[in-house]
């Protein structure tokens, strides 16, 4: 516990002292929300749907970039090797990273809730929130794994541009910015095969108070395991090289 606290503190301090990372990740999703979604939301159910989507986008931004680009930069720094020489299993370090990401993702989601409450007829019954946050956490984990895999598969210099190249299409085609019915025809055909879309189905069901379908949970779990295996493989390969 002492170790988990020490590592989480170090992770969070590092993130909080980096305004170049912190401010965009906190504000970017809300800014997008105000620019493209807020004005068209005439009733509570539309506002809830869009707010859920953009909360997922906010969580996606934090987890994908912190684990993706963050891990890529760390790979370069000998400090991460040093940390591995200390007498603690790596589970503490990884748990601390997840905890730090969860804190930031939650903060980004809260910023979005405030933005939405101030600008739309957003109104969601309290009993739906636990399922919304469960769905958000599951997708955050999945995207964190994808980010980690990316970080170890490509060179640190390539990680940021490549991350953007994956992040924006996944968000758009997964339906985070607009309902799938409004997406271009071709995108509508691809969308159901994307991890982001499978995740959104979970979020939308939770936001609307509808039933979850097992197929979407299975898909998200499947993608998570696949990304985790890829990340593990890439990480081991990286350690053999250096």
């Amino acid at each position, binding site marked *: 516990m002492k170790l988990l606290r020490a590592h989480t503190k170090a992770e969070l301090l590092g993130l909080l002292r980096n305004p170049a990372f912190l401010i965009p990740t906190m504000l970017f999703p809300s800014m997008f929300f105000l620019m493209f979604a807020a004005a068209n939301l005439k009733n509570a159910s539309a506002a809830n749907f869009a707010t859920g989507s953009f909360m997922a986008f906010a969580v996606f931004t934090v987890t994908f970039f912190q684990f993706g680009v963050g891990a890529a930069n760390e790979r370069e*720094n*000998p400090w991460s*090797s040093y940390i*591995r*020489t*200390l007498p603690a299993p790596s589970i503490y370090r990884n748990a601390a990273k997840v905890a730090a990401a969860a804190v930031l993702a939650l903060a980004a989601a809260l910023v979005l809730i405030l933005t939405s409450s101030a600008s739309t007829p957003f109104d969601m019954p309290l009993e739906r929130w636990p399922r919304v946050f469960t769905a958000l956490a599951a997708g955050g984990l999945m995207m964190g794994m994808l980010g980690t895999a990316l970080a170890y598969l490509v060179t640190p210099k390539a990680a940021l541009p490549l991350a953007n190249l994956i992040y924006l299409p996944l968000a758009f085609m997964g339906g985070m910015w607009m309902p799938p019915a409004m997406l271009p025809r071709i995108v509508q055909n691809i969308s159901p095969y994307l991890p982001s879309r499978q995740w959104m189905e979970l979020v939308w069901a939770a936001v609307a108070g509808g039933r979850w379908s097992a197929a979407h949970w299975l898909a998200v779990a499947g993608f998570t395991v696949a990304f985790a295996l890829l990340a593990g493989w890439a990480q081991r390969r990286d350690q053999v090289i250096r």
Partner: protein
Amino acid sequence: MVSVQNVHKRLGKVEALRGASLAVQRGELLALLGPNGAGKTTLVSLLSGLRAPDKGKVTLDGKDPRNPSSRRILGVTPQGTGFPPLLRVKEVVQLVRAHYPDPMSSDEALTRFELHSLAARNVQALSGGQARRLAVALAFVGRPLLAILDEPTTGLDVSSRRALWREIVRFKSEGGTVLLTTHYMEEAEELADRVVVLDRGRVATAGKPEEIKKRVALKKVRLRAAKLPELRSARKVAPGEGGLYTIWSPDADQLVREIVNSGVEFSDLEVTPVSLEEAFLAALNHEVQA
């Protein structure tokens, strides 16, 4: 305390270790010397549990360093300037000490290494000497039984080096065991009970610092001559263009006397000291740039 038995390790295409063996006894200070690429850093990474050997066995107090609990007796210095980007000196010390059962207080560690006034400084803003002091402080803050110090004083001026030496001696006098890698013969002479010279992934030679010094404390003598006789006090002779010879010798005075006594005609005599790196290459009979 430390045992390395016939260890092989390949890193990509390079065979970094090719059957290295050594042991460090409890309470001993062993200095690991060798030219760049000899395998020192790879050996340190095996001992600190970062990698597993391909062949052979590495143990700390009889246990596998890959297992985190075996490393509770171990303190290591981070490499070069490898600190986290956005933490302060005291925060880094606190993070590291949280890993040990009976560590020093952060204040004690900061005071011992003259870092107290820098406690709130961002670690990236430290000077080279301050960063090295912090690195050694991190190796000692957990009160380990064994400290592995990877080039603890590289790039430091004489007075900062002496201050760090005092702390290393103090750690040892309290019963600590130390393995240190260094580029300075002087450092090994001052601190070490025993020196092991690593070369191309194997132990080339081992002994007391004075003995090793005799073998590697070389001077370089250059001169022009048509032909040189057999020279007893030369370690290595490299003929160059236009009759320019380069000779490495542990006793340059004796070497010059020998040449004069042999009656050989020579010119452009020049005697220069040699870096430890170059001395290793000559003493270990490598190809060496004259």
